[in-house]
């Protein structure tokens, strides 16, 4: 009886602890994202620090030099690309909010010029926004007549389309006042990453010193094995994203795709997500071309350009970056991306796959070590 009660209590405690961890993860999601990005940055930069150390610099000098060079590179790229990026972003913001506001403006204009008419008949002609509305109306009619089980109020495509477009523009508009917090993040991430790079080894030693004697050797061994596997994987992911990003920007620039800098960067980042990433990277370019030119030949060129970039990635980049050590099952990738998105938004989706890789390698190495040391 006591045994059952004890087990029940233990179960309750475990559930409670898990709930607290989940709540903390959710509440501190912003801070956790900052820490993960900083740690990844420090980890990616670690070989450079080691190289500089081998050249006779102290760890502090090496870390400082790396960050000075990094700041210079970022400063230079901002100076060269910043203006263009800003113009692309604000143009993107304008074009999305225009879809929403053009209807209202048009109706106002019509009412002002022809006060006697209701404006409705004129509104039915000629404009591209009006065409979209008529198309949506036709779609609605088609759905309600052919699928009688759907109530017409449920369809209301116009409302949904408007909601969708204004949603996008609201997100981008909300992005601007958030500049302060973005700058905060841009300062905090390098700051945290710098100290992790400089004192990471000392921190690891400190952490190991708290491990009880019985598990100490095993912990050191496991940490080393994880480092060996993840080092190559994470650095590989970063280098791959960088190469794909640069290649995509160049290819889209040559094809004169609007917003090619942003779309190319997104393609590079999206490439970090296997299977879905390469497709997701090409989708914005296709949409933008469809919306602006509607040129089918250009679409073929864009798809071919992305195919060539992927081919270069598969033939030249992937064998070099040696990221095969962390093989994740496609289902795990899909779930990781969904969970990452749920908890940490778009950034969480990007960081989900490396995080899943870290969790997989850590649990695998821990399990192997526990078996080797006869702890279970």
């Amino acid at each position, binding site marked *: 009886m006591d045994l059952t009660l004890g087990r029940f209590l233990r179960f309750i405690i475990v559930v409670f602890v898990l709930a607290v961890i989940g709540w903390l993860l959710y509440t501190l999601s912003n801070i956790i994202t900052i820490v993960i990005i900083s740690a990844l940055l420090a980890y990616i930069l670690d070989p450079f620090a080691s190289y500089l150390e081998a050249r006779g610099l102290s760890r502090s000098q090496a870390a400082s030099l790396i960050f000075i060079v990094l700041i210079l590179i970022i400063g230079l790229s901002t100076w060269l690309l910043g203006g263009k990026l800003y113009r692309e972003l604000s143009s993107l913001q304008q074009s999305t909010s225009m879809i929403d506001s053009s209807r209202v403006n048009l109706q106002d204009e019509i009412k002002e010029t022809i006060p006697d008419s209701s404006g409705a008949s004129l509104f039915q002609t000629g404009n591209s926004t009006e065409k979209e509305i008529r198309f949506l109306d036709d779609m609605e009619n088609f759905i309600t007549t052919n699928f009688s089980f759907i109530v017409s109020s449920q369809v209301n495509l116009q409302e949904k389309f408007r909601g969708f477009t204004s949603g996008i523009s609201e997100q981008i508009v909300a992005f601007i006042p958030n500049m302060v917090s973005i700058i905060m993040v841009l300062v905090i991430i390098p700051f945290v990453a710098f100290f992790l790079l400089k004192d990471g080894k000392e921190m690891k030693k400190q952490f190991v010193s708290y491990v009880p004697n019985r598990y*100490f050797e095993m912990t050191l061994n496991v940490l*080393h094995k994880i480092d060996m596997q993840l080092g190559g994987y994470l650095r590989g992911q970063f280098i791959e994203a960088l190469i794909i990003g640069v290649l995509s920007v160049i290819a889209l620039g040559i094809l004169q795709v609007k917003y090619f800098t942003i779309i190319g960067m997104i393609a590079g980042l999206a490439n970090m997500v296997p299977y879905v990433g390469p497709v997701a990277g090409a989708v914005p370019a296709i949409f933008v071309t469809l919306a602006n030119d509607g040129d089918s030949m250009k679409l073929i060129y864009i798809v071919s350009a992305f195919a060539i970039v992927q081919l270069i990635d598969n033939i030249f980049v992937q064998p070099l970056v040696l990221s095969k050590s962390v093989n994740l099952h496609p289902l795990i990738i899909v779930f990781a991306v969904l969970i990452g998105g749920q908890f940490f938004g778009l950034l969480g989706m990007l960081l989900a796959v490396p995080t899943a890789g870290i969790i997989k390698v850590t649990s695998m190495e821990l399990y192997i070590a526990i078996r080797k040391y006869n702890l279970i």
Partner: protein
Amino acid sequence: MQDDTMWGNIFGREEKTEYSIYAVLAKIPIFRGLTKREMRSVERILHRRIYKEKEVLFKEGDPGVGMYIIEKGRVNIVLGTEEKLLASLSNGEFFGEIALLSEIPRTATAVAVMESSILGLFQSDLFGLLETNPGMGNKILLKLAQMIADRLRFSNIENQQLKEKITEFEKTTKDGKKT
């Protein structure tokens, strides 16, 4: 500038006054010939652990990943379930150095006889040192190779002597049977 302040860390570290650790390290053959600065680098990668009386450092069959140096105390190296004593080591002595080169299972169990302060040097840290300070890493590896070569030579001599004893023994038993 204090050692624990943030900027103290960046712009310079004051020399630590833990001379005892250098005195211990200087006795270890693989660290002989290192400069004081290099000794400091070694000290930075060492793990100091305190073991209670009868506490096991490692068990026979565990994967070996590094060597131990006795800073203060005594450690017994025992074999099998009957705990046959192979060696009793004290201050400045070391064991398990072969594990620095390859991850082979421990051939015996190490137990602290009394409360002991032990310094651990591990393969992963040594490999890290080879990356960040190849010159110093080479010095340590060369000493390690020399030590292993010496031990191999000693084992060969011992092996030869045993072989001679066996042939002599076989000879005497054959002679005994004849007479």
